[in-house]
């Protein structure tokens, strides 16, 4: 083997080795994180502050702010399906008539910032109660109309009492920049796991990655 080949092969082997160590560590960390997870642990946003709308970052992956096109796609609706006894499709009107919760919560971004807003919506556990997932359903996928964006979660995090399908923010209807008509919001996952522009909630026996998870961010992304 020539010296250059040897060096580049060794460098590649080293990189591959690092990669394996890092993915091993990620798997072990997820194990630890799931062990730490408690439904009784709640996010506490102390004080009365909420982040002004203009200062609340709004990310999406489409080139422009995703807007539901009702003339092309018909009225927006939310499908709750997968391995469930009673799959369900809800109009926005039907969603808002379900028992609602308003919570002032921290948003923890993977970048290191946090923000506070008051979210109004339906607990995911309430929706699960309606569709009755199969005991095999250990994962939930949250899909959106933002250019195929989705993120799958472990069931326990989805069932946390602070995990909402939110349609209201700071006392007004959820606007397009923050994921309207409805989005997932939970302080127990980092921002990138909280699918905006929600269209579909699918209960699944297995995880199926997600937009940012597939690009190398931790799949679990728990707080």
């Amino acid at each position: 083997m020539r010296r250059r080949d040897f060096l580049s092969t060794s460098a590649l082997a080293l990189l591959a080795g690092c990669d394996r160590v890092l993915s091993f560590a990620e798997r072990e960390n997820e194990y630890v994180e799931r062990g730490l997870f408690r439904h009784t642990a709640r996010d506490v946003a102390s004080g009365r502050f909420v982040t002004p709308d203009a200062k609340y970052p709004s990310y999406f992956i489409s080139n422009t702010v995703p807007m539901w096109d009702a003339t092309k796609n018909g009225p927006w609706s939310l499908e709750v399906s997968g391995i469930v006894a009673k799959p369900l499709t809800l109009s926005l009107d039907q969603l808002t008539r379900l028992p609602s919760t308003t919570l002032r919560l921290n948003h923890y971004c993977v970048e290191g910032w946090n923000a506070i807003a008051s979210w109004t919506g339906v607990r995911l556990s309430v929706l699960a109660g309606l569709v009755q997932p199969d005991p095999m359903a250990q994962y939930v996928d949250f899909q959106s109309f933002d250019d195929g964006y989705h993120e799958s979660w472990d069931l326990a995090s989805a069932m946390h009492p602070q995990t909402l399908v939110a349609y209201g923010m700071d006392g007004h209807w959820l606007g397009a920049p923050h994921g309207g008509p409805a989005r997932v919001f939970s302080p127990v996952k980092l921002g990138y796991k909280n699918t905006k522009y929600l269209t579909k909630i699918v209960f699944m026996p297995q995880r199926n990655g997600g937009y940012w998870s597939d690009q190398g961010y931790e799949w679990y992304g728990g707080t």
Partner: protein
Amino acid sequence: MTTVLRHHWLVRVTHWVAVVAITIMVGSGLRIFNAYPEFARRGQTFCCYPFAGKPIPNWLTFGGWLGGARHWHFAMMWLLVVDGLVYLTFLYLHGEWRDLVPRQGDLRDSIAMVRFYLFIRKHHPHQGKHNALQKLAYFAMPWVGVLLVLTGLAIWKPVELGWLTGLFGGYVWARYWHFVAMSLLVILAVGHIFMVFTVDPYAIVSMITGRYNERFAPEARDARPFYHLLPQEEKSTDA
């Protein structure tokens, strides 16, 4: 003059593992920090960081991108914690904590060391394994480490370990204290490396082989930074 076994192999191994782990932890931590190089909660201001919005120079960071740096940070943290625990357990069981824990007289000895380094005092104060300033630095390091682990847990799990995050004043402050503790550790490490190279480079060999020739000790050389790096002539009055 005698050569002594100065560092147990366990101390040497944990030392170099810590060098690698701390370097990667600091580098990847700075890369993570660069994704939001300030502390204020969105929509609020933060009192106590004058460099808000200015990222750390890339060459000081490690991991390439935010996700990569996080993977390194969350992998290396285990290595560093285990390494630290092994070292501290050894220190306790072997009684070597006595070389590091401050005792009466250390303040006086520290002042004497400072006076010596400032050329106010002519000869190196008498010392044990370490001089009083070294003792202080090596004693502080594990405590800074504990602070780093606790603040790190507080910002990794602000909901699951919310009580801990609250103890540090909330997420924003916990992140700040994590950064401050990192800065302290870097200051201690940079000071340590500077002193090793300019006062006692022979210590590098002893941290590898474990052996140390006492003829080369800073005390025997009256060594200050950049002064008396070579061993001194044996004094005829040596007794």
